[in-house]
């Protein structure tokens, strides 16, 4: 058993739980990637497919977790990590199949019964979103930046005293890497990358289209504001906790403390706590604040129905609309956002996400060859 295989084994139930719970956070007028008019949200096919999805994905998560833990414990050495990774990929494939089964059945009934026939399909916006835009909670970045500064300072203090070879990465395998500026401070670069990536993405989200319901534009704009504020704060907390996890891994690699056996996953706990918080906030608010009521419940309703936009969502999950200037749009499944891959600017963002780690791998490889 290695800490690497335990880490992947930990991801199996986490992924399974997230996928299983996703319909609970999704907007009720989008069921498994199918746009549904508000009066059809409780249709028999929707209720039936939701129930079937929960059972199917729960069974997938249970089986995959049992298989992953068994492999992580039973298979010795490095091979278990790859076997558990294969289990994770199989779980992901099975989960997508569960989604697709529900999607296909609901879409077929919607098409056959003409759910949108005769409905006034509208797109609504509240211009106050632009004239009085929400403010990004910059202060919530301070913990993450403080952890990064602490990591860099500890690395600088430990650097002279480190041996010629140090432990590398998260894995508990015997892998050692020559001591160099790059190998020691790689963790700080990883912290900076994660923090900058998610902060940058959220800054784009703050300038993007709010998720507004045509039937209730004013109230849904207020709900979206509360959703965005809550989810951003939870995400920035998660980022700070991921940085703490990376700091704990770095401290072990820099021989500040030692862990063995199953305890090697302890540095993952802050990350797990942050993820739990984010999921809890996502489930409480629902996509775009669809589960929030409170003081915005009594506002007047406008009376339109959200436009049937299924044709722009490939496989029910991927948004491709060349005529839409939006780069980031609300996700179709679960709570959060996704990219409009029909927009060229979205590909620049994807390139921006891939470039830093790819560059770091190249730099690390070159530095490794030079030393």
């Amino acid at each position, binding site marked *: 058993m290695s800490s690497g295989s335990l880490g992947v084994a930990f991801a199996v139930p986490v992924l399974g739980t997230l996928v299983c719970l996703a319909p609970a956070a999704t907007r009720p007028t989008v069921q498994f990637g199918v746009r549904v008019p508000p009066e059809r949200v409780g249709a028999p096919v929707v209720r039936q497919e939701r129930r079937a999805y929960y059972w199917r994905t729960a069974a997938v998560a249970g089986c995959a977790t049992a298989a992953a833990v068994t492999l992580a414990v039973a298979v010795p050495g490095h091979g278990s990590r790859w076997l558990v990774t294969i289990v994770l990929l199989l779980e992901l494939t099975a989960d997508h199949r569960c989604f697709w089964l529900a999607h296909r059945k609901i879409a077929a009934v919607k098409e056959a019964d003409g759910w949108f026939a005769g409905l006034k399909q*509208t797109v609504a916006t509240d211009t106050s979103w632009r004239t009085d835009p929400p403010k990004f909670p910059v202060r919530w970045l301070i913990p993450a930046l403080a952890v990064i500064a602490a990591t860099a300072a500890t690395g600088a203090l430990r650097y002279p005293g480190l041996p010629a070879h140090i432990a590398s990465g998260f894995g508990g395998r015997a892998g050692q890497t020559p001591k160099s500026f790059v190998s020691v401070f790689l963790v700080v670069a990883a912290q900076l990358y994660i923090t900058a990536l998610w902060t940058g993405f959220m800054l784009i989200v703050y300038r993007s289209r709010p998720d507004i319901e045509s039937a209730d534009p004013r109230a849904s704009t207020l709900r979206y504001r509360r959703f965005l504020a809550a989810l951003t704060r939870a995400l920035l907390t998660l980022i700070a906790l991921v940085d703490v996890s990376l700091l704990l891994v770095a401290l072990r690699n820099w021989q500040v403390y030692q862990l063995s056996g199953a305890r090697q996953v302890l540095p993952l706990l802050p990350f797990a706590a942050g993820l739990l918080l984010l999921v809890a906030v996502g489930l409480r608010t629902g996509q775009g604040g669809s589960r929030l009521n409170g003081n915005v419940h009594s506002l007047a309703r*406008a009376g339109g129905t959200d436009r049937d936009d299924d044709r722009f969502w490939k496989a029910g999950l991927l948004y491709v609309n060349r005529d839409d200037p*939006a780069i980031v749009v609300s996700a179709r499944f679960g709570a959060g956002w996704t990219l409009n891959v029909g927009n060229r600017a979205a590909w620049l963002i994807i390139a921006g996400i891939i470039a830093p780690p790819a560059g770091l791998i190249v730099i690390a490889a070159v530095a490794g060859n030079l030393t």
Partner: protein
Amino acid sequence: MLLSIEPDGPVPIYQQIRDRIVEAIADGRQPVGSALPSTRQLAVDLGVNFHTVNKAYDLLRQEGLLRLGRGSGAVVRRDASSGPADPAWTQDWAARLRTLLAEAAAHGLPATDIELKCQAATADFDFPAAATQAGNGRESPP
């Protein structure tokens, strides 16, 4: 201001955007001096082409209702409180109203129904006390 359009409806999208903004100015939701989103922002929020919003804003600029600036974006240039209407505009509006009434007559709508509908629509908007006369062809300086 809430702005709602029917992307798949029979009326062109730029016309719908223009009409909704005129209605918002008329009912006091967008008073003179108030800001509207930039063309790019409104295009993103409605999921329509940038040029569509540009066309609507340009139409409103030509009609004297919006002021478009590079830095300040779009700002409402006039409303009911900004004084009497331009006589040339009033004449043009009267011609369009005539066509609209002709359509109603051709479709067999009784004059009393037209009056009732006009009264109902009038109640939705803010009219200055003297402006009711301007619509009757009163000549006034721009």
